[in-house]
């Protein structure tokens, strides 16, 4: 990877071994492909099994409790769906994971969030680099007012990961990854606002992926998209694991079932239930979960 600055070579190399075509995976007895990929990402086995985890996390805005004492871990290389009725604190919880709430007036927290074993609020934690490692995709597409190509590499530029002609390489690679390359390759210099909503959201995904994140936070990424675009995005999300750890807030229970391995159910700011997606939907332990997944509350 000639275009990676030394500062990030480690990081991107590691990602690349898993995302790119050069992954060497030899299957063996009793080991899934996922295990092997995860092992390739972390050959020494020193990284915690949970990419990111909330520990006893409580969040409030101006004395109003939004999230209460949530402890949950997000296993590396999986998709965790975060479901719950409107106003249950899903978005607040998600936005806290890359410190987007820090500057909101009245925001207060107790407890901690750890990324790779280190608190995201630790003084040694560089906020900008934290956001590079924990990316975010929003409810509605939010392209920047610059060309399509510049959108993809906006973060790469900001973090000085690549420059000059190398940016073109990054742009093409990421647009291919999200399946947008063929549609936009002849108009990379055009405004992104003329793309369809689904294409814009894919562009935002490409932009988030371009900086090489470890965790990707998705805040209802398909809520403004049509069914076909939604399917494309879901497929893309599945393809991102196990290289990335995804946390997907969604109102669409079908989407949670289709895409995620784990699901957590938040209700009135509390973590009611958390477990493998199939168990949670088919054998919910809590009556509230049952009511929600069967459509009786929500």
């Amino acid at each position, binding site marked *: 990877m000639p275009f990676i600055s030394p500062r990030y070579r480690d990081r991107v190399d590691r990602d690349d071994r898993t995302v790119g075509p050069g992954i060497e995976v030899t299957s063996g007895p009793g080991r899934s492909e996922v295990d092997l990929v995860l092992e390739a990402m972390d050959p020494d086995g020193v990284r915690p099994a949970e990419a990111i985890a909330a520990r006893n996390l409580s969040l409030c805005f101006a004395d109003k409790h939004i999230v209460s004492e949530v402890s949950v871990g997000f296993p590396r290389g999986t998709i965790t769906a975060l479901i719950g009725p409107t106003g249950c604190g899903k978005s607040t919880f998600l936005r806290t994971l*890359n410190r*987007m709430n820090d500057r909101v007036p009245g925001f207060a927290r107790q407890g901690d969030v750890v990324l790779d074993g280190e608190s995201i609020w630790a003084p040694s934690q560089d*906020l*900008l*680099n*934290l*956001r*590079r490692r924990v*990316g*975010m995709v*929003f409810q*509605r*597409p*939010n*392209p*920047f*007012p*610059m*060309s399509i190509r510049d959108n993809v590499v*906006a*973060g790469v530029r*900001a*973090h000085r990961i690549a420059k000059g002609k190398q940016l073109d390489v990054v742009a093409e690679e990421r647009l291919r990854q999200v399946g947008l390359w063929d549609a936009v390759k002849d108009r990379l*210099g*055009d*405004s992104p*606002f003329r793309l369809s909503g689904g294409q814009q959201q894919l562009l*935002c995904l490409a*932009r*988030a992926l371009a*900086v090489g994140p470890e965790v990707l936070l998705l805040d209802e990424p398909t809520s403004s998209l049509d069914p076909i675009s939604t399917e494309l995005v879901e497929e893309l999300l599945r393809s991102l694991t196990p290289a990335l750890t995804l946390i997907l807030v969604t109102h669409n229970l079908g989407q949670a079932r289709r895409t995620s391995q784990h699901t957590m159910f938040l209700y009135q700011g509390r973590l009611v239930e958390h477990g493998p997606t199939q168990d949670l939907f088919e054998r919910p332990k809590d009556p509230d979960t049952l009511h929600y997944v069967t459509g009786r509350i929500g």
Partner: protein
Amino acid sequence: MDLAGTAPTGVSPVGARPARRPHLRRIRSLARAHEHHLWVAGGRAAALVPLVALALTMVVLAWKAWPAARVNGLHFLVASTWKPGSTYGAVTRTDGVAHPVGASYGAWPVIAGTLESSLIAIVIAVPVSIGAAFALTERLGGWLAGVLRTAIEILAGVPSVIIGLWGALTLGPLLANDVYPVIARNMPDLPALRFFKGPVGHGEGLATSGIVLALMIIPIIASTTRTLFAQVPALPKEGGEALGMTDWEVSRRITMPWVRAGIVGAAVLGLARALGETIAVAMVSGSLLNTVAPNLYGTMGTIAATLVTQLDSAFVDGTGFEVRTLAELAVVLVVVLLLVNTAARLIVRRAGGIAAPVGTGA
């Protein structure tokens, strides 16, 4: 045509009860049926008013100016003389236009003065205004923003004659004593920078005019720009933040480009005001008619200021030639304004290429 379904006899279709005042009813129903056309016609008429006003102004000005333009010739745009001639003496005729003997007019000094002072004003005002608007919407919160916003609004409402008086009595001398000498002394002695060196005068002149003009257009540009910034949606900015951009990068790469076209428009609004500003400049420029300012601090005049300072003496000219010359000068100002406006539109079109127009996108 029976649009409302009202029978011609004036009987309401609902029942046997006769309609009251059938004619009025009929007119009203016709008006309702044709309401759309009324709106279109009314709208067109309203849209024409400013156009007609502009055209009439131009025609009247041109009418007044034409004889002077014939006598003064193209020479008027490049010459540096302003001689009314012997206004109490003999009258002569050129091309059938009567004018005093020895009358000779050239507007180059005031044209240059207009452009120079406005350029200084815009160079100072645009960064200051964008900075102020930016601080207001993005960085300052609470009472401080309120204070700054109120200050800008008050500044916008101060009559220009008061700013001019303050400029002539306080700001000009202050600058001439404490600021200009420092600039003139410390500027490297290069041919390209000669303009910034030399005698600094007493506070009346080009630099003071430019600064006073800047003060007058800052509120215009700042309040327009503030509105623009406030309209930038939060989502793209959050996107930048979430990507690990610094506040500066978010401002520079997302907020500003989002409203770039609008900022150019605001700057043009300010520039037009600066080009046409009259009384404040008349009070601080030194009102020189026949010399281009030799350096940044020299006395000078502008077209607008010349119109107001020369009108009184122009009426002394019994042939009316000087008044006609002033009308010609006014035409020149209007043309300059139109050129600036057109240039700005072209810039906006280019700048707006990729950036989203306000209100679209996310």
